């Protein structure tokens, strides 16, 4: 495929380094990572436990800050944003899917999906319409009044996906979205993510241990001990 016909680079990561401090000990997690992700890509990040894949996902999603290097998303260097600027940026540009769904237990499915919209200036009626639409998209509109405890794991993850897409983000960051699901539910969730990528053009970055889940991705990257297997920013 010729370079001109490729979609634009959405995520530009250059020489990214991140370490954590445990007492006096400094533990390097990511070392000089370079990675470009094009708009509309479905990227799977794999690697052994502690390889730094979740940390990399967190950095891309703007929920952690790198120690060094640059991280540009849609032209914005998010490593330079203040905490409140980053919160607004996350709200507008990123939808996050967790392994354990992390729905608010005292809110119904609909209210959970509506939650990110509470930060917008949308009137209540419109917020509700958006949330209902998101639940319809993930095929769980009939359970909108159920509380998380009344839903199965797969259903809860669908609600979590609806919550991630309700603000129409550019990037969907998924941290082992099928890690807590049975085989059937996992397939359904992966099917849903594939649809979001192919039909709605969402850029998806998914951390997974499951090779079958990784097969759904259009691109696979392996991380080992904080180093990407190939540091070729042009990929």
């Amino acid at each position: 495929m010729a370079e001109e016909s490729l979609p634009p680079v959405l995520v530009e990561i250059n020489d990214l380094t991140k370490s954590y401090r445990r007492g006096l000990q400094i533990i390097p997690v990511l070392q000089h990572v370079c990675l470009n992700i094009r708009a509309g890509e479905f990227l799977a990040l794999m690697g052994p436990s502690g390889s730094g894949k979740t940390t990399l996902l967190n950095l891309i999603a703007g929920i952690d800050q790198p120690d060094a290097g640059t991280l540009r998303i849609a032209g914005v260097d998010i490593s330079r944003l203040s905490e409140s600027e980053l919160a607004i940026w996350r709200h507008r540009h990123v939808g996050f899917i967790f392994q354990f769904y992390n729905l608010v237990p005292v809110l119904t499915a609909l209210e959970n999906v509506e939650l990110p919209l509470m930060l917008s200036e949308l009137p209540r009626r419109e917020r509700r319409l958006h949330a209902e639409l998101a639940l319809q998209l993930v095929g769980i509109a009939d359970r909108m009044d159920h509380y998380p405890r009344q839903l199965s794991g797969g259903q809860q993850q669908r609600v979590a996906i609806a919550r991630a897409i309700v603000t129409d983000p550019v990037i969907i960051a998924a941290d082992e979205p099928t890690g807590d699901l049975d085989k059937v539910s996992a397939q359904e969730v992966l099917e849903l993510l594939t649809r979001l990528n192919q039909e709605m053009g969402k850029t998806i970055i998914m951390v997974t241990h499951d090779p079958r889940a990784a097969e759904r991705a259009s691109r696979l990257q392996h991380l080992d001990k904080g180093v990407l297997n190939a540091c070729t920013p042009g990929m």
Partner: protein
Amino acid sequence: MFKLIWRNSLRHRLRTTLTVLGMAIAILSFGLLRTVVDAWYAGVEGAAADRLVTRNAISLIFRLPLAYLNKIKAIPGIKRVAYGYWFGGVYIDEKNFFPQFAVELHNYLDIYNEFIIPPEQRQALLKERNACVAGRKLAQRFGWRLGDIITLRGTIFPGNWELVLRAIYTGAEETTDETRFFFHWDYVNESLIKTTPAIANQVGWFISQVEDLDQAPLIAAQIDDTFRNSLAETLTESEKAFQMGFVSMTKAIVLAIQVVSYVVIVIILIVLANTMAMTARERQEEYAVLKTLGFQGRHLVTLIAGESVAIALMGGGVGLAAIFPAAHYFRTALGNYFRVFHVSQETLLLCLVIAVLVGLVAAIFPAWRAARLPIAEGLRRIG
């Protein structure tokens, strides 16, 4: 946001119920203790600004000659003068204590117009030498009816004093003391002239009503100047200052009650702060998730402070609802000690403000921690 705050506050039913109960008891205790303090100051609060009390400058236990009456009356600006003394009799048994005064009733009732007496009862009271008048609550306490004979055993003025209840007064306001008992000073004095003339024609105090409030300090000084260098020098002060003199004798007790009332609040503040700290610690992951969705520190502060205030207000509301029946019980059971036991609007408002403040202060530490929590750190607790 309000929906989330409300549902979060009911998330741990047992914990919330216990905290609400604790808060309710604290607010109830605070409100009642404040009302006890108010009751202590009831005499001071009930004092009128246009009334001056003249007593012996040495001490209240020393009397003044009745002869001072005309000299006081002659001072310009004085509208009415009454006089009397503390009788201190025993009704059947010493435990039946109530305040008794032998006074010059005609002027006294005009000066104390907050004691409301039906005209026909007033007429009967003033006409009869050994007639007496009791407050509504006092009459209720002993089941007295008009025409009943009330016998007091004198302790300061020896003998049995038979009095006929000719009037029952009601207070013009809710805070008016309705437990007092008055009868004619003349009735006692006539007897003293015969039995112990040395202490006859004396009064414990004069009470003067002034025409112009602004002139009251000047008139007080004039009264005292009139009797300067006499055998019984006088001290004239406003009725409020006079009543305050009694309260200040028990200042330490009042102070102790006030301190206890605030200690109760501090204790419940610690309890609620502990509840909120536990709650916030348990929800760290949830706060991290909310932050991932774009919520900021200030949103989490609103959530935590809102929940804390909601719990505090629930407790405050229950406490305030319980304060009225509790105050009624106090009035009924401890009427001898607290003649006026009225829960004031200021106390209710203070209880409400304290409930909100306790809620806010209890949320400071957990809210600060949640606002500062790095998302990655919060999420690492997951799985």
